[in-house]
């Protein structure tokens, strides 16, 4: 069984979805939780049409039903988890009927999904940004983890929890320590043992406290604590929620360095632009995919004149700063990582090549670990089992941007099949599927507003307004609208979104904006529309 929660994998992870389809063809059930009846939902046995931001109540109600129906994997819960009693007490209040009132998901469907998940011999629960791009993003994830623990759907082949990463190296970036609270190998900055290990290799002390995440950086720009920023391969002037504010803050910096392939909106604000190469085809190195597989990228194309690869730029900058960090050689860098990160110790460059990628953990150069994590939780020996997995008591926090009479429509955002993020790369190829930015409305709302497909309307949120043509999507329920962030140059969707941030992850609530749709009156003096024939 596969659960896709807040994921339109058919369009956003098409090749992952091939694997799902193969499982479905072999008899696996597919449950899709999504506010929209997406292309993914169309392949599902069950589609749970959830109201945006109601993930925690839905997860709690599913847990409630699993417990009420006696479907808890009691042996696993008793041996391998903690906090069950508190968790059970909390979800006891969340009957499917109560949840229906706030999630919009019919109680019968909640029950059906609960039974299907709890009784499946194996179940994989996957999510994407529909879960994480909320101000309760981390708690949303924990609520899903609770379900897996409840049913023992973790730590076995074919059963587990999997965030589907949106970019080819989100996982790798974090693994390499490109997080404010992590060292390479996903080791905590606050862990003295890890710090010692890293310091021994680097020959420098590592500050023992967490750094700032992106949101905190913007907050620090606001207060003036952060005055210089070095941006690599990001386009926050277009990708941030509430971009008006983001652009103001970036523009007010004393010094902004941007390293990118293109002169992006962010680069336009920079004092210094460092032209980089396309890491995936003009440079050598590694990336790590959603299944923690470290894979080799290779230079296939000679870069344009003047562009240098990220490693060359970074080592050169370090050199200028008086702190050489080694030669700009990817394999040397990689070997350094292997010395500081036990997860990667066994992955020699040669081995990664030979095996076509290796999943971490890979502590040893001989042998491979199982492809799934947390298998230890099933061990008979308590010592081997180790620290039990905790249930989390998480409270529902509704979206920060409430619906109201003047903002009655819930706008959610996501990707389309042929485009990627702010479109910096994908708009440069001619896609027969592309039709530009639209505001997708349900047939019912389009009817009520009296708007026709293609008609340009104004979409207004509490923060700003954009104009976009209407597209009618029968997969949308009344009250739900959809836009992408792909065409920011034409339609700046992020003028609408809210900078309401998850305090734990720093991710903004891109998925839940309250808007209204306004028809645009014909300008005064403009010729009238042609009369109907």
């Amino acid at each position: 069984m596969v659960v896709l929660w807040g994921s339109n994998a058919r369009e956003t992870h098409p090749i992952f979805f091939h694997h799902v389809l193969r499982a479905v063809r072999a008899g696996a059930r597919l449950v899709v939780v999504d506010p929209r009846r997406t292309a993914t939902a169309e392949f599902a046995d069950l589609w749970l049409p959830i109201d945006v931001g109601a993930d925690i109540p839905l997860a709690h109600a599913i847990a409630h039903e699993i417990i009420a129906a006696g479907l808890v994997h009691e042996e696993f819960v008793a041996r391998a988890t903690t906090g069950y009693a508190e968790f059970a007490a909390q979800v006891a209040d969340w009957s499917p009927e109560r949840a229906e009132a706030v999630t919009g998901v019919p109680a019968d469907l909640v029950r059906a999904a609960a039974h299907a998940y709890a009784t499946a011999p194996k179940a994989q629960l996957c999510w994407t940004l529909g879960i994480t791009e909320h101000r309760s993003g981390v708690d949303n994830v924990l609520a899903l983890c609770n379900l897996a623990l409840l049913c023992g759907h973790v730590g076995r082949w074919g059963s587990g929890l999997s965030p589907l990463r949106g970019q080819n190296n989100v996982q790798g970036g974090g693994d390499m320590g490109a997080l404010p609270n992590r060292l390479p190998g996903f080791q905590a900055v606050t862990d003295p043992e890890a710090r010692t290990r890293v310091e021994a290799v680097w020959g420098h002390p590592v500050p023992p406290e967490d750094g700032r995440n992106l949101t905190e950086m913007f907050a620090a720009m606001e207060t003036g604590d952060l005055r210089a920023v070095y941006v690599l391969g990001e386009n926050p002037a277009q990708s941030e929620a509430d971009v008006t504010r983001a652009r103001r803050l970036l523009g007010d910096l004393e010094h902004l360095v941007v390293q990118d392939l293109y002169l992006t909106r962010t680069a336009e604000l920079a004092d210094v632009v460092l032209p980089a190469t396309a890491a995936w085809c003009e440079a050598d190195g590694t990336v790590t995919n959603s299944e923690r597989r470290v894979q080799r990228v290779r230079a296939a194309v000679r870069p344009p004149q003047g562009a240098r690869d990220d490693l060359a730029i970074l080592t050169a900058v370090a050199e200028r700063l008086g702190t050489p960090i080694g030669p700009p050689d990817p394999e040397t860098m990689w070997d350094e990582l292997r010395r500081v990160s036990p997860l990667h110790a066994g992955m020699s460059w040669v081995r990664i090549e030979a095996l076509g990628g290796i999943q971490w953990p890979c502590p040893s150069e001989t042998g491979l670990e199982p492809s799934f994590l947390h298998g230890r939780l099933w061990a008979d020996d308590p010592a081997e089992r180790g620290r039990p997995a905790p249930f989390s008591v998480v409270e529902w926090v509704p979206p920060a941007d409430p619906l109201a009479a003047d903002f009655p429509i819930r706008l959610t955002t996501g990707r389309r099949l042929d485009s990627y993020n702010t479109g910096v790369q994908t708009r440069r190829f001619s896609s027969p599927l592309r039709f530009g930015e639209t505001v997708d409305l349900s047939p019912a709302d389009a009817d009520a507003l009296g708007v026709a497909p293609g008609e340009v309307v104004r979409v207004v949120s509490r923060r700003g307004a954009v104009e976009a043509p209407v597209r009618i999507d029968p997969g949308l329920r009344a009250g739900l609208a959809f836009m992408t962030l792909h065409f920011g140059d034409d339609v700046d969707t992020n003028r609408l979104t809210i900078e309401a941030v998850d305090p734990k992850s720093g991710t903004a609530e891109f998925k839940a904006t309250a808007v209204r749709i306004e028809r645009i009156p014909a300008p005064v003096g403009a010729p009238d529309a042609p009369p109907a024939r």
Partner: protein
Amino acid sequence: MTDGAGNPAPAPGATVTVTVDGRTVEVPDGATVLDACTAAGVDTPTLCFGDTITARNVCRICVVDVAGSRALVPSCSRRAEPGMEIGTDTPRVRHARRMVLELLASSVDLSLTDHVEEWSIRYGADPDRFGPDAATVAQPVKVDNDCFVRDYSRCILCYQCTDACGEQWQHTFAIAIAGRGFGATVSTEHDVTLPDSACVYCGNCIEVCPTDALMFRTEFDLRTMGAWAPERQTRTDTICAFCGVGCTLTLHVQRGATDDEGDRIVKVTSPHGSSVTGGNLCIKGRFGAGHVHS
């Protein structure tokens, strides 16, 4: 449990012993007759057989003689059975292979199909013997989008593209076999253009096409201009950057004819053995690489 062809699941670890042209070979249970021929060191021609699609055995060039079987047997899809006596070079086999080559080459443009010349010599095929008026499937190339073109005068109806588009991989069902007999063709509904069809431009049909009937627009344009230069092309495996799945891309790069002329990604494929892709990609991976040239 059965496989796609309805055969029972093989017993793991078990083997089957057969003879190929009198030589005894042992192959794993579940292996095909083609596998057995390969194991015996016999080179078997195949056209419609692809390594990522369940064998359809429609081209019939891989047929072999199996003792006890009245008709010849398609080696690509028949399971090797204990004691099978397989003949790969009998007069009947040679004749059938020769005729398949003659029938196809007299009706379809095989000029871009690998091995045809070599096999035609091996089996003595003379496709011209049916005369200048022999019916063919010649027709104009379908050029209706910037991603890829469809030249059905090169189509041998191997069914791989429809299977890849359909339930073996993509589940898009944008193309199917339409019509019947000699008039059968791969088609969208009512032969509408791809932009009017359900096509999502994953290009997984191009990946499996054995005759280059389906071709990247880049390749088609370069060939048309006379600028297609395989001798200046390299292939490099890397990882797609457009999501977190980590699909291996094989970038086919054509070096510029001069130092001033830049490199160009002319085609993108994926290794069929990749555990992530199985040879498949989506529109972004297959066709979205152009940004590095802009």
